[in-house]
């Protein structure tokens, strides 16, 4: 039996039965990372020594029957924009190449309190800005299903690590689809909660009103349990409200007679034929499970991508102004005065994509452009949010593809990245409106690349949304297909 092919809940059950020890799982994890990460570049930092130390403590708790949680002793990978005390947190950037966080993010505190074991920090698009995990200062992440293809982004390292079963799950962050889209590209499950359900304290900010820490896992049941752990109490993020009943209490609920809405605008000419086919097959599965499916039209969806890029980059331009070469991060070696030092440090410390987004964001909030772009985008945001509120009076869930295409080839550098930005079309709505959303595998292209389907739910109805995905995974096996190269 290959332990790493088991789900986290299966590993946990074996620990409970004393058939395996956490240290055995952790040893297997690092054997796998040593063998395969040369190909995938999923990790920026691995934490072998501390993981072995923690695993021995978890062994003792398991033997004495005093495990701290269902995932006590289970390894987890962490996206490298989530602060981990005493461990490098680079955000995939030269700017933070040597930054060691002096504190833990709240989500990390909860993982540690649950006895979970950090295997390492995963590679990502620089500061979360990208959809292919190829803007990282530490090199691109490679897709375990085809190493010449992108793993998606920005949490591509987390998705590749889970897809190749180096770890059963990983934390990511989702600003415009950065958990769900790489999950779809790598054939794994990705969950983004309602905005405010998980503390953002210690998540290095890209766009604060969109960012949420999420989970990438082998299956939804594992992911939902992990969401329960990381969504625990917090007093340091004023936007945190938690989730009263947690994520798992409806996991085994039937979806019979529930109503699913599908936006017609998402099935137009932009979608790849094979992705469309896999999506329609997933819709048929939901019908067979007893759901009623209706198509609806929502004209405002045509504005979501520009709305997202204006607001997220405006917030990024202010959030990333903290990187000035003074308090932490890169400082240019030669300069004439403090202004020159700040400019040279930022210009050399940030990569091209980050600088481009800071420029667009700064442009959008100048006095002459604020009304035309930023205010307009905020008006669209308000309209979209209330439109979804009305839709969820009629529908129990909204279903659509996660991405219009499967994974794209790596190494295609375009000066004009418009195509990449438009590929976020199906995922950004959930961030703009603060909705919970997830992606689960629903098929493969002829080339053997995974395809994902997305479910969205009403704000703070995350558990109900998860019930659709668990039912889907109960009757399908797409999430069990493994990349051949990784075994």
């Amino acid at each position: 039996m290959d332990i790493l092919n088991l789900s986290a809940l299966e590993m946990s059950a074996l620990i409970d039965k004393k058939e395996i020890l956490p240290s055995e799982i952790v040893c297997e994890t690092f054997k796998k990372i040593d063998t395969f990460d040369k190909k995938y570049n999923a990790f920026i930092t691995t934490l072998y020594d501390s993981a072995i130390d923690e695993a021995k403590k978890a062994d003792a708790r398991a033997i004495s029957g005093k495990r701290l949680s269902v995932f006590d002793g289970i390894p987890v990978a962490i996206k490298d924009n989530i602060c981990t005390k005493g461990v490098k947190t680079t955000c995939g950037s030269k700017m933070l190449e040597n930054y060691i966080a002096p504190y833990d993010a709240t989500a990390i505190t909860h993982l540690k309190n649950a006895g979970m074991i950090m295997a390492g920090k995963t590679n990502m698009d620089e500061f979360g800005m990208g959809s292919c995990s190829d803007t990282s200062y530490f090199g691109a992440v490679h897709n375990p299903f085809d190493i010449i293809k992108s793993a998606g982004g920005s949490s591509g390292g987390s998705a590749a690590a889970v897809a190749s079963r180096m770890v059963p799950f990983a934390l990511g962050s989702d600003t415009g689809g950065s958990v769900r889209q790489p999950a779809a590209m790598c054939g794994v499950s990705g969950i983004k909660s309602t905005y405010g359900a998980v503390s953002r304290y210690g998540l290095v900010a890209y766009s604060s009103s969109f960012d949420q820490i999420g989970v990438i896992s082998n299956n939804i049941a594992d992911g939902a349990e992990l969401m329960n752990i990381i969504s625990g109490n917090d007093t340091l993020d004023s936007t945190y409200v938690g989730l009263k009943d947690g994520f798992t209490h409806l996991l085994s609920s039937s979806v019979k007679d529930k109503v699913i809405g599908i936006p017609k605008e998402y099935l137009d000419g932009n979608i790849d034929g094979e992705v469309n086919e896999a999506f329609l097959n997933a819709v048929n599965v939901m019908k067979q499970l007893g759901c009623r499916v209706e198509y609806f039209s929502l004209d405002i969806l045509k504005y979501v991508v520009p709305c997202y890029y204006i607001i997220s980059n405006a917030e990024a331009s202010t959030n990333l102004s903290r990187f000035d070469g003074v308090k932490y991060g890169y400082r240019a070696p030669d300069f004439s005065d403090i202004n020159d030092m700040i400019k040279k440090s930022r210009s050399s410390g940030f990569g091209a994509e980050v600088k481009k987004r800071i420029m667009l964001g700064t442009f959008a909030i100048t006095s002459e452009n604020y009304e035309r772009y930023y205010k307009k985008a905020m008006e669209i945001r308000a309209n979209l949010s209330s439109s979804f509120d009305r839709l969820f009076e009629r529908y129990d869930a909204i279903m659509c593809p996660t991405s219009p295409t499967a994974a794209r080839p790596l190494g295609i550098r375009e000066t004009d990245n418009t195509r990449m930005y438009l590929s976020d079309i199906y995922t950004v709505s959930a961030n703009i409106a603060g909705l919970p959303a997830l992606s689960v595998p629903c098929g493969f292209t002829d080339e053997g690349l995974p395809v994902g389907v997305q479910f969205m739910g009403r704000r703070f109805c995350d558990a109900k949304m998860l019930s659709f995905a668990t039912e889907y995974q109960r009757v399908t096996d797409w999430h069990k297909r493994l990349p051949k190269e990784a075994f």
Partner: protein
Amino acid sequence: MKITEKTVDKISDLAKLSFDMKEKDELIIGLNGMMSFVTTLENFDSSEERVADFSFNPTCPLADDVATPSLKREDVLSSAPLCDGSAFIVPKTVEEG
């Protein structure tokens, strides 16, 4: 709206960034690509929208007024590019008159 070299010069100064000519040329192409879809926002009729009302969580929870320990000075300074053990070191910020 078209992004020109003049726009880039003005915005880069505000954003505390600098670009050489090659980077500037690429940036102008990239930003104009972004603007090509961003300008569609102008078509949205927003006469009935009230942005001030927009909030996901209208009841923002407040923390108790209790002082809690801050990070240790040495921990904070440990990631500074340059410090003297008790403060960040920066170039002179007040110009001589």
